[in-house]
């Protein structure tokens, strides 16, 4: 009988989903706090994302991401990337394109950034991890740029992931953390070139850590423990630690002599980071090659059409660095290195080649990116001073900064490798960013993140110093009291009214009293509890202002530059105008085929290219480069520099679309950079390029310390941290809701029949407008427009004997007649041939002859024209362009800008000939009588005579523009020369009776 084998009972195998569902998660207070924090972080990052106008750079990134899903994206080093273009493109592909969805991928990465401290719980501790999540959730800088499609939130995520993976690997030795570290590095490198700076900091730290650990191995083997020997060993080893790591297998003799038993795990990380970085530094080899004239300067540049020889040269240089990296990596751990390097290269090249559709990306990424970024160092974009981040960090990240600095004793002197790493990360990045030529507010993100982590570590450390000795639950209420007292004390001190010594003393007293109360609250728990209470009181005190800064920047005025974080920001007027454009497109039935003109001068095409992405007939034309183009543009968006030109061209048009007056709006604006002039040490504003105000100049610090008074920079600075508003006047509320900020402005031209208030087309009355009154009941007539009775640029007015009024318009060239109450009567174009665009004309002055003839001084038509009282040309036209040679005496009819006209008792017209510094007298028929004056400041001489008026006694008064002027901008009281006094400083014009009186006598 054969024994039958009995099959083993089958073990029930559960499906993955089943296993997932069977995981039990214990609901603890810690978990509940995380859930609450993540819910808040989600709300803060995704709430109302589309409310703020897309920043200039945001619009470029959004537009390129949108273009990517339509196959229009190619990596360009100027615009960084390409990782986030792909991430954002995916969002657009799924959710469509809008201002809201344009910021979804940064918000997603912002959420992931908040969660990353969980990977560091081993070093941060339970309370420290919660604090890190909270600090990142509420950080004003981190939140603002998590709702902002720039590279920085992506890069911050990858750098924090690198830090977390590095420590996880060094603790566990598991290769998956090494892989995560390498992929995070790749992600950051595929996002922004500033990664090089942070990687340099990491490399330095790892090198020193390797040196430390090798020294410890050596000392342990030799039974040594002296502190001085340890320090000496680190100092000696650090310069070579990286080389020791790279050549580890070949240094058997050296290792034995120093008793280095094993390569530390920090060495593994250093090998990965070093070998991945080395090929990406290949572009730097061009510097010595160009320096020693091996290649022409600027020749080795990646471009699709570069010569084969240059491609070979660049390829050869890459071959050298890649083979060097591979040599080190493969002799270290061949399989691991090949896997990690291969995975990173695949991800990197997939992104830079736009999913393997752009072969040039292989070069433009690793070579072009560093090449461009390095070249920008000397451009010093923004021209910010060296202390830029020393302003930004205290203004926004004062909460973590206070904890970092307050807990420095714990984290530096009494800390561990992790806390010292956080200091190196924060301090090294701070110095690197301050050294870099381009300083921008979004880079503050890379200081805020390590500051938050270090502050969180400090919180845990403060608790750890005390917790083992006391029951924490018993202390919760006293701790909460300390936080409330801290908050109340600081808020009271900050808002206590008054200025001067006494209120300042009162503020200090309030703070001291609050600190004393917090100290008293801690007393029942012993001396070791004091640190915890101090940290909690500080967090409580600063949280109010931190939250206030966060809400203000991210939700209240994210596109109004009262915050230093806001730079080259598109004004909120742009999306508001966009609603007008969309409504007009719909009302006209033209839809996305509505023609629109965008003045592209000074990069004004952005952000319009994003907002007008659906419109098919948008002309982007630099209006500074030529005449206003003809076309049936329903909307024109014009740079402020081209507004006068546009207005003049429109006034001369006799056909085509008639536009209402341009609506002025700030296009791009930025925080008032008043700090540059505040640090003027006697050499002008302090910037990166000028001011002689570096950190190593004694004059810089004497300037700082000499202005430390109660009412000087400390008070201003504290007030700014409190309010985040410099105040200042608001010249035109509707145009500039930000009083003190800088801006470049523009104007939007809509058709005259478009009502912007109702967003509808309206039928305009073509009849002349009736006279009306202003808000104070004063009579008025006219108004901007080209209807009869309206004006585009009225300049002078005259009245005839019957009381009728005549108004001349310098841009429309129209002379119009009104009755004494302002009712329109008649109009005429003062040009001889209004249809002739070559006929120069720009009238600025009027005069009425005793017989009622209306005389026009056509300043830049170089002539005088006369009209009957009914505005019919009399046929009298005289004057000619001046001789361009200033040495030639002007002729009788040479008029270098006739500005104004007045009549003497004989009926002769007196014409101010501004450029010739004279007055020329003609008969009404245009016959020359005589010329008066000449250039100078003496009696009877002029320097740009402008206005002229006859007095009842036969004298004439002349506004002599530059005589006696010391400044063209400051105008004060006029001075009569007949009294013998000269115009004082600041006077810009003076009246002359001496000349006029003598001239009048001569005419009698």
């Amino acid at each position, binding site marked *: 009988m054969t024994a039958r084998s009995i099959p083993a009972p089958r073990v029930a195998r559960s499906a993955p989903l089943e296993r997932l569902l069977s995981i039990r998660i214990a609901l603890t207070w810690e978990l509940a706090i995380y859930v609450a924090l993540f819910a808040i972080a989600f709300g803060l990052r995704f709430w109302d994302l589309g409310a703020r106008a897309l920043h200039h750079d945001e619009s470029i990134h959004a537009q390129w991401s949108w273009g990517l899903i339509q196959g229009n994206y190619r990596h360009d080093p100027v615009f960084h990337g390409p990782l986030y273009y792909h991430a954002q493109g995916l969002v657009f592909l799924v959710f469509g394109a809008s201002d809201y969805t344009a910021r979804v991928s940064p918000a997603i990465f912002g959420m992931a950034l908040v969660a990353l401290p969980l990977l560091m719980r081993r070093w941060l501790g339970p309370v420290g991890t919660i604090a890190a999540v909270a600090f990142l959730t509420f950080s004003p800088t981190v939140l603002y740029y998590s709702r902002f499609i720039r590279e920085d939130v992506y890069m911050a995520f990858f750098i924090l992931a690198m830090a977390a993976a590095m420590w996880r690997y060094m603790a566990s030795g598991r290769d998956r953390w090494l892989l995560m570290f390498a992929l995070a590095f790749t992600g950051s490198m595929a996002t922004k070139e500033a990664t090089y700076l942070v990687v340099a900091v990491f490399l330095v730290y790892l090198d020193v850590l390797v040196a430390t650990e090798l020294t410890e191995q050596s000392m342990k083997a030799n039974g040594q423990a002296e502190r001085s020997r340890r320090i000496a060993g680190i100092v000696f080893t650090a310069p070579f630690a990286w080389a020791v790591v790279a050549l580890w297998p070949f240094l058997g003799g050296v290792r034995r002599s120093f008793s280095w038993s094993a390569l530390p795990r920090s060495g593994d990380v250093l090998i990965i980071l070093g070998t991945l970085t080395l090929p990406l530094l290949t572009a730097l080899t061009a510097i010595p090659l160009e320096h020693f004239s091996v290649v022409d300067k600027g020749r080795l540049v990646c471009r699709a059409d570069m010569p084969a020889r240059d491609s070979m040269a660049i390829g050869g240089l890459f071959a050298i660095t890649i083979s060097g990296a591979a040599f080190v990596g493969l002799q270290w751990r061949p399989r691991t290195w090949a896997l990690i390097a291969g995975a990173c290269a695949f991800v990197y090249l997939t992104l830079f080649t736009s999913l393997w559709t752009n072969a040039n990306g292989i070069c433009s990424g690793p070579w072009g990116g560093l090449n461009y970024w390095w070249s920008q160092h000397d451009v010093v974009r923004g021209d910010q001073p060296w202390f830029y981040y020393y302003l930004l960090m205290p203004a926004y990240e004062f909460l973590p900064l206070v904890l970092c600095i307050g807990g420095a004793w714990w984290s530096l002197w009494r800390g561990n490798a992790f806390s010292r790493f956080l200091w190196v990360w924060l301090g090294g990045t701070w110095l690197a960013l301050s050294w870099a030529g381009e300083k921008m507010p979004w880079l503050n993100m890379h200081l805020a993140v390590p500051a938050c982590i270090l502050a969180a570590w400090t919180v845990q450390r403060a608790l750890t110093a005390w917790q083992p000795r006391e029951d924490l639950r018993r202390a919760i209420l006293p701790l909460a009291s300390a936080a409330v007292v801290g908050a109340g004390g600081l808020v009271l001190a900050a808002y206590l009214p008054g200025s001067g010594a006494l209120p300042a003393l009162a503020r200090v007293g309030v703070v001291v009293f609050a600190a004393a109360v917090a100290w008293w609250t801690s007393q029942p728990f012993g001396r070791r509890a004091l640190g915890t209470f101090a940290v909690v009181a500080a967090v409580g005190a600063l949280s109010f202002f931190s939250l206030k800064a966060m809400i203000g920047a991210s939700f209240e005025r994210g596109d109004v530059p009262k915050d230093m974080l806001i730079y080259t920001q598109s004004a909120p007027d742009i999306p508001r105008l966009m609603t007008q454009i969309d409504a007009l497109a719909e009302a006209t039935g033209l839809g996305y085929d509505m023609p629109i003109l965008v003045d592209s001068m000074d990069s004004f095409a952005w952000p319009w290219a994003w907002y007008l992405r659906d419109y098919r007939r948008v002309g982007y034309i630099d209006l500074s480069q030529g005449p206003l183009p003809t076309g049936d543009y329903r909307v024109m968006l014009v740079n402020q520099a081209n507004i006068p030109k546009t207005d003049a061209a429109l006034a001369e048009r006799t056909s085509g679309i008639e536009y209402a007056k341009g609506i002025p709006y700030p296009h791009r604006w930025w925080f008032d950079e008043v700090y540059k002039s505040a640090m003027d040490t006697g050499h002008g504003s302090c910037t990166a390029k000028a001011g002689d105000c570096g950190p190593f100049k004694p004059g810089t610090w004497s300037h700082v310390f000499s202005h430390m008074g109660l009412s000087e920079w400390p008070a201003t600075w504290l007030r700014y941290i409190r309010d985040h508003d410099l105040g200042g006047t608001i010249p035109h509320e509707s145009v500039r809701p930000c009083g003190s900020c800088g801006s470049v402005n523009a104007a939007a031209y809509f058709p005259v029949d478009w009502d912007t208030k109702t967003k509808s087309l309206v039928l305009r009355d073509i009849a002349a407008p009736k006279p009306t009154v202003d808000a104070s009941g004063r009579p008025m007539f006219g108004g901007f427009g080209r209807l009869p009775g309206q004006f585009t640029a009225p300049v002078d*007015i005259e009245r005839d004997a019957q009381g009728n009024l005549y108004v001349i318009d310098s841009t429309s060239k129209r002379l119009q007649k009104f009755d004494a109450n302002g009712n329109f009567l008649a109009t005429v174009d003062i040009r001889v041939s209004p249809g002739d665009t070559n006929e120069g004309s720009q009238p600025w002055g009027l005069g009425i002859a005793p017989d009622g003839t209306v005389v026009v001084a056509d300043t830049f038509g170089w002539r005088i024209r006369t009209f009957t009282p009914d505005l019919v040309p009399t046929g009298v036209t005289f004057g000619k362009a001046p001789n361009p040679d200033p040495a030639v005496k002007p002729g009788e009819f040479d008029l270098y800008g006739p500005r104004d006209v007045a009549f003497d008792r004989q009926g002769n017209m007196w014409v101010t000939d501004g450029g010739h510094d004279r007055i020329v007298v003609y008969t009404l028929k245009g016959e020359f009588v005589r010329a008066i004056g000449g250039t100078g400041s003496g009696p009877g001489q002029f320097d740009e005579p402008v*206005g002229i008026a006859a007095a009842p006694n036969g004298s004439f008064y002349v506004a002599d523009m530059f005589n006696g002027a010391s400044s063209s901008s400051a105008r004060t009281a006029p001075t009569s020369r007949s009294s013998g006094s000269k115009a004082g400083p600041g006077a810009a014009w003076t009246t002359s009776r001496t000349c006029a009186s003598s001239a009048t006598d001569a005419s009698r």
Partner: protein
Amino acid sequence: MDDKPYLRVLRDGRIAVSLPSLNTVRIYDASGAVKGTVTTEQDPLSRPYGMVETLDGKLWIVEGGIGRVRQFPIP
């Protein structure tokens, strides 16, 4: 726009001078002393240029910056 001042001799012999860049009109006597300023509590002048006195002693002022003509009492 241009900053050129205009002037007008009033019937009482004083002189009105427009100062476009300061958005104001000043009245001087013949010796050059300031005798008044055309001011508004709201809706200020916008680049005043030419002026003319009405038959009943008011002053029409051209406001080039806003494209209108407004009447003011002479201070």
